[in-house]
């Protein structure tokens, strides 16, 4: 019994240690970076130090409010429209096999077209307003959601489908009771990826011109060689994307309480 306990504690300690590894690694990296800049090995105007970045971040954050709101608005609008389109298309593709055969390859090919090359075209076509940015966000978010939802709908247990069929379930019932809930795990992985892409997509869109937003701000500070501000905005984008990622995970936990329990169960075994 005692031996069991000691292995238990050892396991816990090693688990805690493993958890600390990424933070420790990041910390070492940051320290090295700081030292390199402080010692003048790399000049400050070429590469701002982590500490400078954080100080600048705190300084400029209040003034960035309007830019943040614009970027978030673009990202959320695009993300939301992408979800709607993706769900509709995935459901259609799943229920009409011919459509899937026709569209799937096209979807994959479309992803090989570099967005950064397309984005200027959107500016030409749709101007400097909200629309071209939202389109960029839709384009980057759409794909991971469609593919993950399609995979989910496709991976439903055939025996479960047959069981419902034997009970006389119609297609709509099968979809509602089995197929849609069964694909939720995949759907949410797609959503998490798409959510982090959405901010990036908006920034790319803004980078090509516009009245406001973090991308526009970055362009301005780049032109004035204020690299510390540039880095501060990058930090801000990372934080925003991470928060969105976490937010999607939280929604998933709320909507699918069983999923968390299941994972815990697997972890225990």
């Amino acid at each position, binding site marked *: 019994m005692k031996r069991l306990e000691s292995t238990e504690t050892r396991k816990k300690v090693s688990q805690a240690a493993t958890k600390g590894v990424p933070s420790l690694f990041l910390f070492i990296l940051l320290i090295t970076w700081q030292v390199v800049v402080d010692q003048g090995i790399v000049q400050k105007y070429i590469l701002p130090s982590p500490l400078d970045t954080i100080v600048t971040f705190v300084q400029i954050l209040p003034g960035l409010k309007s830019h943040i709101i614009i970027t978030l608005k673009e990202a959320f609008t695009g993300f939301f429209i992408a979800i709607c389109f993706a769900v509709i298309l995935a459901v259609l593709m799943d229920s009409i096999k011919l459509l899937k055969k026709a569209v799937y390859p096209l979807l994959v090919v479309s992803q090989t077209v570099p967005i950064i090359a397309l984005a200027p075209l959107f500016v030409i076509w749709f101007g400097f307003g909200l629309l071209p940015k939202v389109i960029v966000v839709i384009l980057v978010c759409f794909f991971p959601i469609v593919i993950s939802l399609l995979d989910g709908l496709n991976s439903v*247990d055939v*025996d*479960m489908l*047959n*069981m*419902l*069929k*034997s*009970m*006389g*379930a119609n297609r709509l*019932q099968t979809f509602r*009771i*089995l197929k849609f*809930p*069964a694909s*939720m795990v995949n759907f949410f992985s797609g959503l998490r990826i798409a959510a982090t892409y959405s901010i990036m997509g908006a920034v790319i869109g803004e980078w090509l011109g516009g009245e406001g937003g973090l991308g526009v701000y970055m362009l301005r500070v780049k032109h004035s060689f204020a690299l510390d501000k540039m880095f501060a905005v990058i930090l801000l984008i990372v934080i925003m994307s991470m928060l969105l990622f976490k937010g999607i995970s939280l929604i998933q936990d709320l909507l*699918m309480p*069983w*999923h968390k*329990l*299941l994972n815990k*169960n697997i972890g225990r075994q």
Partner: protein
Amino acid sequence: MNTCRDNLKLSVKNIKKTFGDTAVIEDVSLELYEIEFVSLLGLSGSGKSTVFNIISGLVMPDAGEVFIEGKNYTGKTGRVSYMYQKDLLMPWKKIIDNVAIPFLLKGQGKKQAREKVKDYFKVFGLEGFEEKYPFQLSGGMRQRAALLRTYMFSRDIMLLDEPFGGLDAITRSKMHCWLLGILENLKTSILFITHDIEEAVFLSDRIYVLSNRPARIKEEIIIDLPKPRERKIVTTENFNRIKRHILSLLDEGEEENGCI
């Protein structure tokens, strides 16, 4: 359990099925009477599951018909359901909601459906597990829930396709006694697929022994062992006599594979 010979619940008449070039069922006819427990015994791959798929209406036979209470149900789903070796419980639904699926399919609301199944949890020994998720239950308990769901769909006829095949020997033997126990209170006819001779003899009133693929009925055996049955019956002379007979039936025509 007394068998009412006059009340024919299910009859399968001369069904045949070929998938591509492989003949799976050559000629199978069988009957199931009210409150009767009948087993379909055959080696793996002998086409037993295809017989079930045809009875439940999922697969259309090439020839032959399926009658349920005198009505032709060939190729029609929605009358009898079956249970598998896999429990097929949906991990995102609580046990009570899994069990209530048949009522959801009949167009009832979630609350109403729950109300309908609630009382059966005690009968099936699942009391206290209503609000649990499938993965929180043991294999045996999950199979109980799967059986309850099947019972909720078609109370008079249940098709069980090796339902205990995935359980360990001790749990399986416990499930046998549990099944016979609850069946005393339920007026239901059961068609049971298995490749386990002892399981078939212990549970059944009648056994159809199937040939190898393509399947046909080799022999129909009436199990005249007294009921209710206790575990120790498996060591009696009568039990072993039946078992020996079935073994010799299954070995026929494959001497080269028999061990010496």
